[in-house]
C-alpha cells in the first residue's frame, strides 16, 4: 500500500526568484494489487508525483508511507532497498544500449548488496524466466537497438520485475508506441498485475489507457488532484471541467468527425476495454 499525505513539491527558482510549486497538497492511498492511474496533460505534475513514490524526487513537505512505514526521509542503503521493491518503466524505455537484452534484465540483480546478490547463473536464470514471461525468449543476446519499441518496452518490463517488486511505476509507458503495440503492452501489464499481484501505478495523458486498464484514477491538473475515484464512475460522471472536456473531445474523435492534434490517443480511445485486457 502506498500512502501519500499532504505532499507538496516545489523547485527552487533560478537565482533567488520565487520557488515554483509543481504539486500542491496531494493525498492519495493506492491499495496493494490495484492498477492506479494518474491522468493529466503534460506539465500537470504527474511525472513528478510518480517520482516522489520512489523518491527520485524528494518531497518538499508531506509524508510517504509504503506498507505503513514512513519512508519520507530514508537515505543510503535503506533508500536503495526501498527502490529495489519498486520497479519502474519509462516512456523511452531507458534500456542500456551497450548491454545485451539479458544483461539489461540482470542489471537490477547486479546492484543489490553483495550479501543478497544471486550468483551469476541464478541472475541469468531469473532474467531468462522474465524474458519468457514478457514474450521475448530467444532475444537474450541481442542489443536494444536491434529491437522494436514494443519489444524494448517488454525488456524494460522484465528488467523492472527482476527484483520481484511489489510495486511497478509506469511513466507514460505506452506514449512512444503505436496503437496496436500500446494494446499489447497494456495486456502484458494487466497480466503482470493479475498473475504476480504487482501494484501498478501508471501515469498517462491518454484517457483510453486510463480507462482500459486502471481500477482507479486520479486526475492531476496544475499540480492538484481534480478527480479521484473508480475508473468507470469517474468517466461516467466527471466532476471537473477538464475531464469533461477531454471526454467530450475523445468521443468527438472516436466518432470520426474530429481532426485535431491529439490523434494517436484519440485513435487508441476507440479500442474497447475488452480488447485491451484480453
Amino acid at each position, binding site marked *: 500500500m502506498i500512502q501519500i499525505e499532504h505532499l507538496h513539491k516545489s523547485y527552487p527558482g533560478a537565482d533567488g526568484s520565487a520557488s515554483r510549486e509543481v504539486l500542491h497538497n496531494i493525498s492519495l492511498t493506492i491499495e496493494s494489487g490495484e492498477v492506479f492511474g494518474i491522468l493529466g496533460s503534460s506539465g500537470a505534475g504527474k511525472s513528478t508525483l510518480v517520482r516522489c513514490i520512489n523518491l527520485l524526487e524528494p518531497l518538499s513537505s508531506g509524508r510517504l508511507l509504503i506498507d505503513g512505514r514512513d519512508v519520507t526521509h530514508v537515505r543510503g542503503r535503506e533508500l536503495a532497498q526501498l527502490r529495489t521493491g519498486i520497479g519502474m518503466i519509462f516512456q523511452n524505455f531507458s534500456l542500456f*544500449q*551497450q548491454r545485451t537484452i539479458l544483461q539489461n534484465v540482470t542489471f537490477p540483480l547486479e546492484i543489490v548488496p553483495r550479501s543478497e546478490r544471486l550468483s551469476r547463473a541464478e541472475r541469468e536464470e531469473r532474467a531468462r524466466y522474465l524474458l519468457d514471461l514478457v514474450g521475448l525468449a530467444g532475444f537474450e543476446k541481442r542489443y536494444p537497438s536491434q529491437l522494436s519499441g514494443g519489444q524494448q518496452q517488454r525488456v524494460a518490463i522484465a528488467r523492472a520485475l527482476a527484483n520481484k517488486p511489489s510495486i511497478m511505476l509506469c511513466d507514460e509507458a505506452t506514449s512512444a508506441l503505436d496503437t496496436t503495440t500500446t494494446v499489447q503492452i497494456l495486456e502484458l501489464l494487466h497480466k503482470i498485475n493479475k498473475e504476480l499481484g504487482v501494484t501498478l501505478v501508471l501515469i498517462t495523458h491518454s484517457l483510453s489507457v486510463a480507462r482500459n486498464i486502471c481500477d482507479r484514477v486520479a486526475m492531476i491538473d496544475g499540480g492538484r488532484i481534480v478527480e479521484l475515484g473508480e475508473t468507470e464512475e469517474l468517466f461516467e460522471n466527471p466532476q471537473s471541467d477538464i475531464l469533461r472536456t477531454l471526454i467530450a473531445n475523445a468521443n468527438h474523435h472516436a466518432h470520426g468527425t474530429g481532426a485535431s492534434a491529439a490523434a494517436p490517443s484519440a485513435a487508441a480511445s476507440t479500442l474497447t476495454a475488452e480488447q485491451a485486457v484480453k
Partner: protein
Amino acid sequence: MSFLSFASAFLSEYGELLTQGVIDTMVMTAASTLLAYVLGLPAGVLLITSAKTGIRPNAAVHAVLSGIVNLVRSVPFIILLVALIPFTRLIVGTSLGVPGAVVPLVITAAPFVARVVEQSLAEVDGSLIEAAQSFGASSLQIIFKVLLTESLPSLIRGAALTFVTLFGFSAMAGTVGAGGLGDIAIRYGYQRYQYDVMTVAVILCIILVQVVQSVGDASAKAIDHHTK
C-alpha cells in the same frame, strides 16, 4: 635502380636511427597517454558527477577541479616543458630522454583527458542514470555500470584523440632531448638541412598516426552496439 641503391644506402646509414625514433616516439606517447588517463579519467568522472546536474552535485569540488584543469591547459606546452624541468628531475631523476619527456607530457595531457572524458560521459542519456537510480544503484555503481560502460565507444575515440595529440606534443619534447621522430626531424632537417631524413621521419609520423587512429576508430565501432 638508382632509387633502390639510394634507398639501401639511406637505410644502412639512418635505418637504426629511425627505428629507434619510432620506438622512442611510440613508447613516449603510449606511456604518457596511459599515465594521463590514470590522472585524467578520475578527474573527468569527478567533473561530471560533481556538476550541478550530476549525480553528486558539489559546487566547490567542481569549481576547484575545473579551475585546475583550465589553468594547466592554458599554459603552452613548450613553456610547461621548460618550467617543469626541476619537477621532472625530482620525479624521474632526469629531465632528458624519454623519461624526461613523459612527465611534462602527462601533466599537460591529464587535464585534456579530463575534458575529453567529461565530454564522453556527458553524452550518456540522463534517463539511463535515472533508470539505474530507480533500481537502487549507488553513485559508484552508476559510474562503473552506467556512465563508463555506456560511453565506452566514445571513451576509446577520446583515447585515440589523446594519443594523436600527444604524438604531436612529443615532437616538441624533442627540444629537451627527448628523442623520437620529432627530435630527429628537427635535428636533421631544421638544424643540418638533411631534408631526406626529415622527410622520412615525417612520413613515419603520418603512418603511425594513421594506424593508431584507424585502430581506435575500428575498436570503438566494434564494441558500439548503439546503432547496428
